[in-house]
Each structure stands twice: as C-alpha cells, then as structure tokens.
C-alpha cells in the first residue's frame, strides 16, 4: 500500500520538477536559440566607407553577445542581393534603405518588418538626395540638365534613384524623357568616381548630416573626401530632394519573437551604453535608434509602386508599333 501511494507522489514530484525546468526552457530562453542556431545578417559589400565594414563587425560581436548565438554576415555586392536574401528568408535581418525595404515589402509583405531607424540629435529621421555636378561644370540647376547625361546609383537605391525621380515629376520634370541619357553607376562611390571621370554630366547620390540650409557633412562624397579619394571642392550640389526616411534595421517576422526583441533592445541601447563605439562606427554623434513600423515607410512604398507603374506604362507605349 505504501508503494502504491508513493508512485503518484513521486510522479507528481517529477512532473513539478520537470515543469520547473520545462517552464524555464519554455520562456523561450533556450527554445528560440535552438530554433535559430545562428543569426544571419545581410550586409552590402563594396560600400564606400570602411567604417561600414567596421560597423558590421561591431554589430556582429555585440549581437553575438546579446543573443548568445553566432552571428554570420552575408555580403552582397549590390542592393538586390540584400533584398532577395531577406525576401527569401536566407537571412534573419539586415540594414536596408527605405526603397529597398519597399521592394521587400512588395515581394513578401509583412514577413519582413522594420524595427529601428536612426533619429538625429535635432529630431530628424531622414536624409537627402543631392544632384551633383563637377565644380567646373556650366550646369547650375536641374533645368540646365535637359538633354544631359545623368548617372543614377542603382535601380533599388532610394536616394540615388527612386526618391529624386518622384520629386522631379512633382516639379514637372519627367525623368524618363528630360535627360539625354541615363545609366546606373552601381553604387554611391562608383557614381562619384564616374562623375569625376566625366562619364556623365551629373549624378544623384545620398547626402546627410544636415540640410540644404545648414549644409551637409555625411554621404559618399564626404566619406570619400575624408579618405583622400576626392576633394569636396571639386563638386557642386545643384539640387536636393528630401528628407527621405532613414534606412532601417529589418528582421524577418517569422523568426522567434525573443530574437526580434533582443535585436531591437540591444541595438537601441547601443548609443547610450557604448557612446564611443557608436561614434567609432560612424553613426552621427547625438543620434540614437528609434522604433518604427511599416507606416514610417508608407510614402516610399507608394512612390516605388507608382514609379514601377509609370515605367511599365512607358514600356507598353514603346512596345506599340508606330
């Protein structure tokens, strides 16, 4: 009889003890790690700024400690590589410009979501497109560009393609017919180098760290100048468009919620807990991350859809027999 009552009690004890351990594991502390095994981040290769590579190495180490998982960086040579890696789920997170996120959103909707963007010290959360010419160019304004050659950055670039084209249309300039010839440089650095080499009359690149009134201090032109590759004085900004919603850290939403929360929390805490590191990785001094969602990029998503519709309509007209 004693043995008989012992069995259920011991069983009950085991159940309770198991539930202690089980509850701990079910708080996702361990389960989600087992599910993910590693953190895979898509990063753009061939960036103009060595600080960008440094930034991702810092993030890799920092996020590795925060998540307790190995972090692997997957480098892509162009915008589309990051976009496809995110859309296909080959990576868990990335830092991506607004237009790139709009592309991802069009492909997979809410399977990828923005979690953070940078808020500047003065509260701004955007940057600009700058139409850049050589300082010795006779071109002084956007209207002077009629029939001239223009180098865009990349079809998926927000500041180097999508946004300025929309603003040109708003100002009565059809970017598909106004310029004599357009081409893609492939990146911001390449765009500046090609302009310097006279491959086109103007290029449109990202510019930031200020505004049209106070001037600018960040972007490929300034980064290249600080590396001694070009001299800022050799170029002139003749037109700007913006502000454009800043780039965003995005995560796949089908990843465990604890992972997403840790990424958002650890990254948001970085400028406060390690301010020297924040500056060292070329983040604007005084800036910080702030949480955003899809609505912050709604205008860019709309612009991209409209741009694609316009071009498709144009192609359809071109396809018609004359």
């Amino acid at each position, binding site marked *: 009889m004693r043995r008989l009552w012992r069995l259920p009690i011991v069983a009950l004890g085991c159940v309770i003890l198991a*539930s202690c351990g089980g509850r701990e594991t079910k708080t996702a502390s361990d389960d989600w790690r087992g599910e993910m095994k590693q953190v895979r981040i898509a990063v753009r290769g061939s960036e103009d700024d060595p600080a960008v590579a440094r930034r991702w190495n810092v993030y890799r180490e920092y996020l590795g400690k925060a998540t307790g998982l190995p972090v692997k960086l997957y480098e892509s040579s162009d915008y589309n590589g990051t976009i496809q890696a995110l859309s296909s789920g080959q990576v868990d997170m990335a830092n991506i410009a607004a237009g790139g996120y709009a592309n991802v959103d069009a492909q997979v909707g809410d399977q990828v979501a923005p979690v953070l963007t940078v808020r500047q*010290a*003065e509260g701004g959360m955007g940057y600009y497109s700058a139409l850049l010419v050589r300082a010795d160019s006779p071109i002084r304004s956007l209207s002077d560009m009629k029939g001239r050659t223009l180098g865009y950055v990349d079809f998926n670039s927000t500041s180097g393609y999508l946004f300025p084209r929309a603003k040109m249309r708003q100002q009565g300039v059809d970017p598909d017919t106004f310029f004599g010839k357009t081409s893609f440089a492939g990146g911001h650095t390449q765009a500046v180098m090609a302009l310097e080499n006279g491959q086109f009359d103007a290029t449109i690149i990202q510019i930031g760290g200020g505004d049209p009134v106070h001037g600018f201090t960040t972007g490929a032109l300034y980064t290249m100048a600080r590396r001694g590759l070009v*001299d800022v004085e050799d170029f002139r900004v003749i037109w700007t468009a913006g502000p454009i919603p800043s780039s965003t850290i995005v995560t796949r939403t089908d990843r465990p*919620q604890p992972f997403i929360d840790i990424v958002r929390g650890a990254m948001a805490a970085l400028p406060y*807990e390690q301010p020297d590191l924040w500056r060292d990785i070329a983040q604007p*001094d*005084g800036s910080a991350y702030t949480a955003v969602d899809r609505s912050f990029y709604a205008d860019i998503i709309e612009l991209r859809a409209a741009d694609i519709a316009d071009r498709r309509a144009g192609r359809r007209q071109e396809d018609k027999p004359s």
Partner: protein
Amino acid sequence: MRRLVLALVAVGLASNAEAATLKIAAIGEVSGPCAPPAAEAPAGEKAYFTLLQERLGRDVLKCPVVDRVEAARALADGKVDLAVLDQAAFEPVKLTTRPILTVRPKGGLHRIPILVMTKASKAAPNLASLKGTTAVFGGQSAAALAMPRRTLADQGLGPGFFAHESVAADTDAAAKELRAGAADAMVINASAWQRLCRGDKPGEDRCRDLKTVWRGRPRAPLAVVIRRDMPDELRFRLIGIHVAMHVEAKPAFAWASSWIAGGAEFEPTEAEALTVTSR
C-alpha cells in the same frame, strides 16, 4: 519519506513561481502582495501586463508600493524586478540597480549629449572651474539652447553659474565668439560639435584649437530601474519590448508611460541616467 517528497514538491512549486515571474512595482495607496492586475484595472494596465506576459513567456505581477522609496527598497531587496524611480529614490540603491529606460516627451528631443568647450589654451580642467566666466550657446533651437541649459542645470550649473550667457545665431557664430575671446566657454550639442569639428579632408580636425571640458547627457527625471544582476538577455528583451510599445501596443504604452505627461516613446538610457556624472 512522505515529508521529503512533499518538501520537494513545495520547493519545486516555489522555485517555479520564482523563475517564471517578473514583478513590477506600482505606486498605490497601500503596499501589498504581488498579484496580477485586478479585473477592474484600467484597460491600458491590463494590456501592458498581458503584453509583457506574452512576450516574455512568464507571469508578470503588479506589486503595490506606497512610494518610490519603497519601490527602490523592494527592488534592491529582490522583491520586485522593475520599478520607476526618481533621482532621490535611486540614490540609496544605485550600487545594485541601474536605469534602463526613460520616456521621451511628445515633440521633445531624446537625451542628446551636450559638450562644454573652451579654447585649448584655457586652464579649465572641469566644469566647476568655469564658474563666473562667460558662455555662448549655438542657437535658439531646443537642441541648441533649452537642452544644453537643462543639462547644465542637472550638473548644478543653473542660472548665475556663468557671469554672462549669450546666444549666437548658430554653432559657427558661437565658435567665432569663443575663438575671438568674446566668451570663455561654448555650450553645444554633440551633433553641432560634429558638424563644426569634422573636416572634409583625411585626418582633418577643425577644432584642434578647442578642447572639450565636459560631455554628458541631461539627467532623466524618472526612469525604469532594474537590478544590475538582471541577465543581459532579459534586460535587452525588456528594452526591445518597451521601445516599440508606442507603435505596437498604444494603450499599453499610454498606461506604462503615464509617469511622464504626454510621452512619445520609451527611450533607452545609460546606467548613469539618474545621477550627476561629473563636475
């Protein structure tokens, strides 16, 4: 044997409850035991506790305390895990606890770093040594004037510390006044400092003739405080959940941030956010 088994069961139950809860201090009329929010609790309060419970996978309990001093004591003693403290309540427990979050007010700036600069040649080793001198600010905007003034006041440098204060049109004009000797010190924010001093050529530093005497953020008036021994994972998860609350769970955010009127979002903080960092 029977006693041993029952004791094991009791220990199991206790440790299970201990490991699986997050206890939050909440100021009320009377102290009391930790418990889930009452059925008649405001919708925002219930939304907040439900959000944390779902996202953390553990029970989240409300622990009534009568004031922030009791909350601080309960936090230090391990009776609660999270408490909103002011500077006075935080001071006695600062060695074992730290702030992690505060609230940015609507339309307000986040807590940007402020710099006090002088000419490099000036003998000014610290802020206190600038008492009775003159200072210039770099503009009228909140980031150029109101936040720097508030930050100085946090350090005990309120009105009267400087013999004279002036406000230049912008950072460049303020730097001109400093360099010309029209002011002994210049007070600007970190972003303005970077625009002023970072050159466009390799290794260029446009402020070699200036030095930074002090750099720091404004003090947070109130902050969410945890014990320093909280594991990083839980700390980061709490920060991640809170900083996104204003977009993901608005009613929960409204309740959880109600200790600052008109909150816009939770903002992370450094461990020194409730203390005077330097003179």
